[in-house]
């Protein structure tokens, strides 16, 4: 490859410092650190080699900072743990010493060496990785992060408990917020519940508290009956178009009827519907919104059982848990008797079946129309079921409850107590295997019970048991909400389970690959209300941290076009995976109008797809140039530092 001699000359004088970490024995128990240091002294360009028990400790960082301040070194390599863990630690140390943080290269000799190799092999591999990093370090150029102005405005999509909580937290931070819901109501699925476990709070209080404050906030503009119909831009500078329209004919019919029947006004909580802030629009309007960040709080859908699944749809006596909750909530308004009643029918015994639409197993459960199986646990249904079971037993002592489970997980504070309470209130438990679910049939035997249940009960040593019941309740799980329009428009990452997927479940739990777009609540995974609010606050905190300064700083590791080499073939534009990150623009070169590639650094993710395809080698990712890779590879295979191992 034709190297640029001018560049080579400029970089051949860099003074590289190599700092090798023992990681308190994590590395030095398997890697002979002294030998790695001795070998590192032979690497071209290396002027100083040091080691320390913990490079990330203050004294360890001081070693680097001293050498930078004295001018002993001007390129730094630290050989230690994974770069995710501490590369920012060392970049910051360099910056504090007055250096540019991008003259830094990391060699991972813990996860990639000492944790997986031993003896000479470990020491040799560590030496080669350090040599490669040092070779790259010589080529590193000081870089500056991009500054992009950012609108101090956040758009929250979804007016359920997650959206309300996010919007409030953001407004309290002084940011302007647009809160959007596709329905005429605020409160989401929370508003359609009755009492929330484990505290037994009425949801009316939760929703009223949150939505009340949202509607009073001058910082928050609420748009109901609205959908995002256009999306463009990047972190700090998104442009959205909202379309606000009357609901389609039968949509939200039940909720609207409840609103008019309740005699409640706008802004007041309507049981099993939510809070309608401002009525229903009669005409379609559009709004353009410029916004700095987007919080997705689009929620979930309860699993809808297939026709015939546990006789659902075939027998009116088979209902879902959300349906039961609504009936019980409505009954309470009428007053309750010692026996649960549904449509004036006394329920003497009820069977509750867990894991309906959750934890489905290929080969055992039937996939849905699209071929999907919900293999995940919905996490909330065990506690919700037991909470409801105790509610039945406490309010209606003459109604018996049979609980059929595969496993019970009432995890979390105050939730094991739900199991205790159900047990205390004499709920009878049965346990079935996934491939032998309880069998619900019409009761043809004696008695006037409409249904009969048979189960092979593992708690009774696989004996077959049967019991007649008046009602079967299916504890349905959570499914991803239908947001395919947003997924398509915003190119959102979807996990194998169909929920939106974060960058990393622990390190970046509310962020997705698109900078400036955050996740709040059950659009990401099944969460209970408490977890949903935690996630919502997390997303709000993240959004306000991003926009707090009025500008965002972006990593400089983006593509850069060398206009001396670019011929405007457009190959890179075709290879680019992010719409708008690369384009061909017209420019003057030597008085001639030509097309050349241009990078939008705010959108470029630095993936390198363009670098791989450019026939002229005219495009590179800063901090990761082809030349740097070549030098790393040269040094890995070089026998200057270590004798070749092929002998």
């Amino acid at each position: 490859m034709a190297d640029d001699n001018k560049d080579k000359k400029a970089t051949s004088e860099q003074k590289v410092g190599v700092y090798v970490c023992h990681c308190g024995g994590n590395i030095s128990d398997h890697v002979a650190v002294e030998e790695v240091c001795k070998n590192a002294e032979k690497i071209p360009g290396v002027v100083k080699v040091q080691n320390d028990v913990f490079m990330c400790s203050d004294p360890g960082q001081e070693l680097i900072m001293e050498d930078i301040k004295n001018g002993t070194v001007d390129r730094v390599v630290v050989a230690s743990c994974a770069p995710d863990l501490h590369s920012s630690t060392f970049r910051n140390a360099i910056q504090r010493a007055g250096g540019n943080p991008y003259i830094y290269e990391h060699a991972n000799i813990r996860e990639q060496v000492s944790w997986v190799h031993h003896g000479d092999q470990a020491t040799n591999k560590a030496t080669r990785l350090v040599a490669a990093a040092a070779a790259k370090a010589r080529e590193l150029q000081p870089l500056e992060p991009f500054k992009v102005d950012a609108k101090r405005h956040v758009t929250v999509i979804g007016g359920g408990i997650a959206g309300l909580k996010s919007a409030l937290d953001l407004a309290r931070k002084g940011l302007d917020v647009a809160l959007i819901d596709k329905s005429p109501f605020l409160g989401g699925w929370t508003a359609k519940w009755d009492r929330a476990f484990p505290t037994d709070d009425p949801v009316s209080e939760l929703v009223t508290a949150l939505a009340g404050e949202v509607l009073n906030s001058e910082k928050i503009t609420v748009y109901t009956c609205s959908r995002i119909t256009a999306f463009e831009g990047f972190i700090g500078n998104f442009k959205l178009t909202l379309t606000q329209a009357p609901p389609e004919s039968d949509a939200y019919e039940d909720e609207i009827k409840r609103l008019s029947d309740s005699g409640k006004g706008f802004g007041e909580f309507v049981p099993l519907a939510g809070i309608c802030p401002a009525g229903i629009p009669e005409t379609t309007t559009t709004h353009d919104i410029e916004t700095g960040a987007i919080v997705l709080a689009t929620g979930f859908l309860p699993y809808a059982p297939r026709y015939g699944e546990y006789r659902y749809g075939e027998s009116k006596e088979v209902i879902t848990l959300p349906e039961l909750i609504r009936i019980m909530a409505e009954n309470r308004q009428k007053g309750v008797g010692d026996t649960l009643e549904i449509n004036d029918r006394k329920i003497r015994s009820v069977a509750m079946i867990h894991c309906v639409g959750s934890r489905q197993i290929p080969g055992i459960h039937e996939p849905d129309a699209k071929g999907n199986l919900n293999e995940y646990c919905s996490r909330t249904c065990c506690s919700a079921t037991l909470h409801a079971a105790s509610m039945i037993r406490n309010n209606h002592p003459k109604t018996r409850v049979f609980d059929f489970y595969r496993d019970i997980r009432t995890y979390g504070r105050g939730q094991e107590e739900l199991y205790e309470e159900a047990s205390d209130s004499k709920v009878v438990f049965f346990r079935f295997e996934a491939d032998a679910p309880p069998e619900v049939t019409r009761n043809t035997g004696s008695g006037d019970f409409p249904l009969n249940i048979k189960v092979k009960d593992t708690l009774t040593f696989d004996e077959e048991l049967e019991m007649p019941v008046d009602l079967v309740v299916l504890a349905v799980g959570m499914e991803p909400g239908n947001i395919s329009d947003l997924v398509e428009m915003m190119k959102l990452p979807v996990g194998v389970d169909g929920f939106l997927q974060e960058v990393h479940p622990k390190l970046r739990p509310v962020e997705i690959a698109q900078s400036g777009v955050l996740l709040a609540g059950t659009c990401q995974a099944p969460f209970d209300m408490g977890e949903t609010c935690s996630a919502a606050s997390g997303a709000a905190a993240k959004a306000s941290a991003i926009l707090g300064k009025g500008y965002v700083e972006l990593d400089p590791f983006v593509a850069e076009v060398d206009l001396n080499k670019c011929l405007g073939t457009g190959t890179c534009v075709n290879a680019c995976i992010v719409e708008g990150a690369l384009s061909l623009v017209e420019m003057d070169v030597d008085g001639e109008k030509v097309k050349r590639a241009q990078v939008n650094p705010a959108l470029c993710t630095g993936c390198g797809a363009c670098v791989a395809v450019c026939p002229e080698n005219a495009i590179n990712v800063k901090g990761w140039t082809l030349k740097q890779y070549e030098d790393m590879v040269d040094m890995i295979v070089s026998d200057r530092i270590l004798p070749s191992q092929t002998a």
Partner: protein
Amino acid sequence: MTQVYPEFADELEGFGVNTTMDCFNCGTCAAICPLIYEHFPRKMIRYAQIGAKDRILENYEDLWRCLHCGLCIQTCPREADPGDLILGLRRFVVDHWRRT
């Protein structure tokens, strides 16, 4: 096929047992029981929970094997007093004999 009869737990209260439904079927009692007898006393407790009276009467002899050592009562994580339940079931069996 065994019919489930959940009222049995209430019936047992008349025989001095009010912990029938506390058991969560972990099997600690059966593991600690010196009788090394198949699933005793766990199986009996389960029959009591689901109200399988016939099963209890069929297997009444098991109830009289119990040594009343108290190990199951000491180790039960749910404090469901398995040994006392066995005593209560004996009273139920005796009562049932007298009546039939």
